[in-house]
């Protein structure tokens, strides 16, 4: 198990902790070699943007899987949330209709959580049911046709960018913080790798910002959502309790933790993030599409598993999930650039996930 460098200090650098990172680097190199267009900033931004909704979903999925559960309803909630925005935005306005979509996610999560904890329905079944309910309802209320969004301000959010100056200031602040944290840290040797990695990522973001003259709002929302989740899992009491109850619910309960309440919260979080993903997708597409992202929960699950989170719960990292989602995003992009059909892409993804899981189980021996 690992819970971030704040908690786990291993005497030696263990490359096995970074399989996903190395996998990603390898894939990027292969992509750069195979496709001339891959490394163009526009393409990279595109990868990030188009994966932002799934990425937000994968963040929520990480919570569910950490408890040893799963949330199969996420892709349906994503679609339903987009539909809600599309259908209410003209009467309610942007703010209220987005709030409504998010509230829908939270309430669904509450219901699922209660069913899971109080009625002891396995998460697999409970969320499968909710998957069907919301997908079905999304079809029913739209008549199975995409609902275009005419609110320009909302649609612009999907294409607009955070101005370059502001983005650069934020990135500079991040860099300063990372360096400071490193200098203050007591185990510099161990932190060196992650610090360098973080600085490289920031440098990369600076490059993207400058070449793209700003940073897409969709990506910004995703990054913010990631930081919130990361903070919860790594630095909050609640996060630690999620890990504990994922590892051994009875021991967690006997340590004075309200297991049921915490699990309900987990499904509220995953559902909320799915709804947020729906809002992002709606903004990007400029419409609420009921058939959007059918089967998308598998991408989220794959990202989480590729990122090293154990399906049996209790161990994993949200940073891993980010790597996982990038892996999948880059792979999809590469296959598309190479002209591989989307059907064959599915086959590739399946194989990659299988390899990741095998690597993971051999690591944990």
């Amino acid at each position, binding site marked *: 198990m690992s819970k971030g460098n704040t908690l786990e200090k291993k005497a030696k650098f263990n490359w096995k902790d970074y399989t996903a990172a190395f996998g990603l680097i390898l894939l990027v190199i292969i992509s750069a070699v195979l496709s001339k267009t891959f490394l163009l900033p526009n393409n990279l931004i595109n990868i990030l943007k188009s994966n932002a909704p799934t990425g937000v979903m994968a963040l929520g999925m990480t919570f569910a899987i950490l408890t040893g559960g799963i949330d199969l309803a996420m892709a349906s909630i994503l679609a339903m949330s987009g539909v809600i925005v599309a259908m209410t935005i003209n009467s309610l306005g942007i703010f209220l209709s987005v709030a409504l979509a998010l509230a829908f996610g939270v309430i669904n999560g509450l219901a699922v959580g209660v069913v899971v904890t109080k009625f002891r329905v396995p998460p697999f079944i409970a969320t499968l049911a909710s998957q069907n309910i919301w997908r079905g309802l999304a079809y029913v209320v739209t008549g199975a046709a995409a609902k275009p969004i005419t609110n320009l301000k909302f649609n612009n959010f999907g294409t607009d960018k955070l101005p370059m100056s502001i983005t650069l200031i934020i990135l500079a602040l991040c860099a300063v913080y990372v360096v400071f944290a490193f200098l203050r840290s007591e185990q510099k040797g161990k932190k060196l790798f992650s610090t360098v990695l973080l600085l490289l990522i920031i440098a990369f973001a600076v490059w993207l910002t400058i070449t793209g003259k700003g940073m897409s709002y969709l990506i910004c929302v995703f990054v913010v959502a990631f930081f919130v989740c990361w903070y919860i899992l790594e630095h909050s009491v609640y996060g630690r309790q999620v890990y*504990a109850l994922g590892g051994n619910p009875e021991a967690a309960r006997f340590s004075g933790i309200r297991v049921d309440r915490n699990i309900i919260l987990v499904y509220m979080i995953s559902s909320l993030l799915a709804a947020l993903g729906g809002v992002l997708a709606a903004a990007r597409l400029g419409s609420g599409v009921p058939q959007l992202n059918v089967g998308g929960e598998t991408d989220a699950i794959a990202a989480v598993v590729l990122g090293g989170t154990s399906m049996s719960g209790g161990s994993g990292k949200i940073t891993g999930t980010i790597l996982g989602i990038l892996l999948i995003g880059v792979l999809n992009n590469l296959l598309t650039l190479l002209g591989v059909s989307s059907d064959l892409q599915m086959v590739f993804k399946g194989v990659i996930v299988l390899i990741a899981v095998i690597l993971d189980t051999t690591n944990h021996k």
Partner: protein
Amino acid sequence: MAVLEVKNITIDFPGVRALEEVSIVFPDGKMTALCGENGAGKSTLGKIVAGVHPQGKFSGQIFLDGEELKFSGTRDAENHGVVIIHQELNLINDMSVAENMFLSQMPNKRGKVDWKTMHQMAREMLDSLDLDDINTHTLIRDLTVSKRQMVEIAKALSKNPKVLIFDEATSSLSEAEIKLLFEVIEKLKERQVTMIFVTHKMDEIFRSCDHVAVLKDGKYVWDRPVSEVTQHDIVTGMVGRELSEMFPPKSGKPRGEELLSVKNWTVYDNADSRKVVVKDAAFELYAGEILGIYGIVGAGRTELMTSIFEGKAIKSTGELYLHGQKKVIRDTQDATKQKIALVTEDRKKTGLVLMHSVRSNIALASLNKRAKMGKIDHAGEAVAVDKSIQDFRVKVPDSSYLVKQLSGGNQQKVVLAKWMLNEPEVLIMDEPTRGIDVGAKAEIYKMLRDLADAGKGVIVISGELPEILGISDRILVMCEGEIVANLNAGDANEVNLAQYALGVAGKADA
């Protein structure tokens, strides 16, 4: 005939050398006690002999009757007649007793399981152990811990071993069951089975072992016939220093205010809510005292105490008072907030998150205490955890070590440390020293006494008479779900406690 010899055994785990150049000859047809502190390497040695750590994971040799053994796994070892009974139970909860016993070698007819023969064989085995009350069709999860342990023993015996290793097999058994086990062991000796007996209970060594070998910090210290050693020799060999008194002197200070009390407290069975497991219990716990709870397995001691801590998760009726005020405890979090702590009897099931680090486990019950606005105080936690690792002398390279990598006794120390960090006012401990070595036991007893002297209330559930008598200021005895006696330490002795626990002479012990 089976002389077992290990030669120059060395094994390393990340950060620890668990055994270093250990050589011991285990005389044939005898039982050799294997002694050592927690983490000395006893279980590891047993696992090496039984093929759990296969050839290649360690260096050194194992000989049986002069022939070198190279096991590729436990199955291979069993085929050679070497069988181990593990420190932690290894049964599958959702399978029946018979299935568990014959898991690795189901009787079959051309691949089809022969259920009838299997249950018959299981029945015979259990009967030979006087376990007629265990049905072979019962699921393991429906058995008490001690019965599970007996099934584990029956399972090992059904493999017809030449070499049999008991790793703390008696730690969860009742006195009656231990007696039974020792009778079986005598029979095995007649059949020339060579046995290794890992235990922290000194009396068992002198009761039934012929030979004793001592390990310290992974190194061989000495081995001698039991007839030539005293308990003092063994303890000094294990600990490497003279051990002071086992039990700290009782303070003799007058006890303080009433901390916790229950009245008319009735608890119902978790599975069957009509069945009463504790009936009309009433007791008080005062500040500054250690209250011992004695009784045989199944007397309702655990149920009484967990029902207080678990609150509404368990069906119970009656009144509960904290500091003289009537309270309802809703759940474990509520209990923890009221500064009640419960060290459960089953560390693997309810005490530890095995896959997590020592640090996360020790910190778990006191997260909220250190947190500011829900944010974990990482630095404060690191300091607190490292201090408790030292206080309890948990043998671990550093706090990021996973709990599942610790020896059994060290795992138990982690559970104790977890609750101590929360600074409870009422500390309830269910068999707190199970699996803990003599040296560490003495230190834990001292810690408990210090807590009591600091005005806290301590409740110790134990089935071990010396422990109950040595540590308690006052003793409650439970029998068949009722509190049948409330004795001051001065009035209690082994005889009257046992009589109360058994419902006075005449009644058979369950």
